[in-house]
């Protein structure tokens, strides 16, 4: 976190970070408060949101490869934002998050319906999500080709970047992430029951339909907010739960809180790395997570035992 504030186009010595934060007369006060601090806070929020959403989604679909990207939820939010930008010229700002949430919710409901509604199986959900995901990304690309100049800002956004952060963005996203986080954490114990299969879960007195609905709402809030703030970041929601699972095992009562803590570390670390590597400009954090995440993910896939049928 300290690094995230210190590192940038204008480096601040680590020793100066605290004065820069607290002393309005310090030379770096403006840089820190208008750019670095919101950026760091946004990274924390988005990281937490994506990490928890990924873990919840993997539990819900009983699919270790599930990710806010896999079910098309981030893509839905992105498509809604791109459409809004094209039609109404809504760029950054208050409107964006509502479009993102609407898009995320529409895709979630759509995937659920296409995947078979109440009788949806993890495999069908994943297939429906993958199909919608591909279609929506093509759509976002098409929208950007239509209006390349006007959507220059959006182009960086679709890669995933924390660069657009300001205090307003943080304030707008915060309540959605907070509610989504609480809902997800409250669902940890029921999700543990659901992990044993629907029949076992019901035999234990859990209500699978209710749990699914609550978790889907939580995921929509978390993914929609994160995507609105910094674009469809990949791999954070997929990788962090896998890394954490090595430490905590499959118990979601531990897994979810640890994801909430570790995911922002990974995201901010990637953001800092992007700022260091891309000097004097920067690499978008979405590119960094993708480049780092790809190999790490392949490594995880090869060491994960294949699931028994």
């Amino acid at each position: 976190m300290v690094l995230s504030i210190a590192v940038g186009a204008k480096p601040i010595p680590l020793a100066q970070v605290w004065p820069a934060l607290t002393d309005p007369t310090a030379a770096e006060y403006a840089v820190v408060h208008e750019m670095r601090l919101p950026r760091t806070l946004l990274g924390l929020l988005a990281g937490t949101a994506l990490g928890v959403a990924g873990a919840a989604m993997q539990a819900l679909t009983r699919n270790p490869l599930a990710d806010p990207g896999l079910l098309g939820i981030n893509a839905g939010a992105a498509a809604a934002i791109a459409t809004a930008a094209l039609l109404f010229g809504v760029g950054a700002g208050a409107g964006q998050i509502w479009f993102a949430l609407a898009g995320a919710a529409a895709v979630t409901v759509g995937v659920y319906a296409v995947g078979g509604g109440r009788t949806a199986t993890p495999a069908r959900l994943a297939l429906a999500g993958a199909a919608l995901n591909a279609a929506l990304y093509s759509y976002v690309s098409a929208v950007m080709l239509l209006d390349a100049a006007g959507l220059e800002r959006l182009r960086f956004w679709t890669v995933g970047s924390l660069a657009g952060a300001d205090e307003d963005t943080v304030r707008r996203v915060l309540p959605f992430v907070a509610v989504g986080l609480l809902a997800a954490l409250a669902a940890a114990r029921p999700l543990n029951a659901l992990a044993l299969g629907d029949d076992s879960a019901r035999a234990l007195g859990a209500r699978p339909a209710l749990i699914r609905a609550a978790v889907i709402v939580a995921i929509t809030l978390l993914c929609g907010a994160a995507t609105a703030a910094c674009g469809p970041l990949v791999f954070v929601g997929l990788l962090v739960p896998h890394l954490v699972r090595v430490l905590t095992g499959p118990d979601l009562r531990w897994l979810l809180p640890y994801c909430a803590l570790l995911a922002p570390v990974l995201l901010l670390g990637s953001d800092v790395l992007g700022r260091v590597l891309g000097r004097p400009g920067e690499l978008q954090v979405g590119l960094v997570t993708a480049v780092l995440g790809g190999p790490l993910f392949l490594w995880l896939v090869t060491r994960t035992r294949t699931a028994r049928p």
Partner: protein
Amino acid sequence: MTSRLGGSGLRLAYERRVVADDLTVAVPDRSFTVIIGPNACGKSTLLRALSRLLKPAAGAVLLDGEDIHRRPARAVARTLGLLPQSPTAPDGIGVAELVSRGRYPHQGLLRQWSRDDERIVAESMAATGVADLTDRLVDELSGGQRQRVWLAMALAQQTPLLLLDEPTTYLDIAHQIEVLDLCARLHEEQGRTLVAVLHDLNHAARYATHLIAMRGGQVVAAGEPGRIVTAELVEEVFGLPCRVIDDPETGTPLVVPAARTRARQHGGRA
């Protein structure tokens, strides 16, 4: 005969396909009840209805005199447990952790893991002989060991009634007997009421204290195996010509299918 669990006038259906109509059953208290019948006779469907996984299209399953679907899910889960046919173990879960998930209906946001839970999980694992597997991963276990771990989870739920859907499927003969011996012991020593669907008629006749024979969604006969298992019943239920002799080990009925040549004389299936 008293009965905490049963149903009357049950119509059981998946979508529009009716599996059983006007079905009436009662599970005697403290019995080891086994449901048998040919494939697609509705025995697993009946078990699903009794465990409230399937809501009857007509009639009602009664638990302690009340419609099971009107009672709170958690209260039912403290009275009636179920081991489904193919439960899913989450990847990388340990034996003790899986067994402890059986405590779910006894916990809540305010009532977290307690010393009682700890003790009950340990007792359940001791009762099923998996105490020495505590630190193993469920994925690494053999089929028989895994089934005993699942049974331990169901025991940790501490329900007076326990329903088992084909608990011996996919196990070799030694592990089948091991699991059934364990069930019989739980029934005798802990006084639990057990209801199991079994495929093997001889296993059913040996272990059940109460047998329910089904065919075409109807109960053909119900009662003590020694009283109801006859060559005529087996022929009627399974369409299998056979002889019924005394099991030399236990004295319970033992069904010996007729030899191919004799079956033809019977006019049965060749």
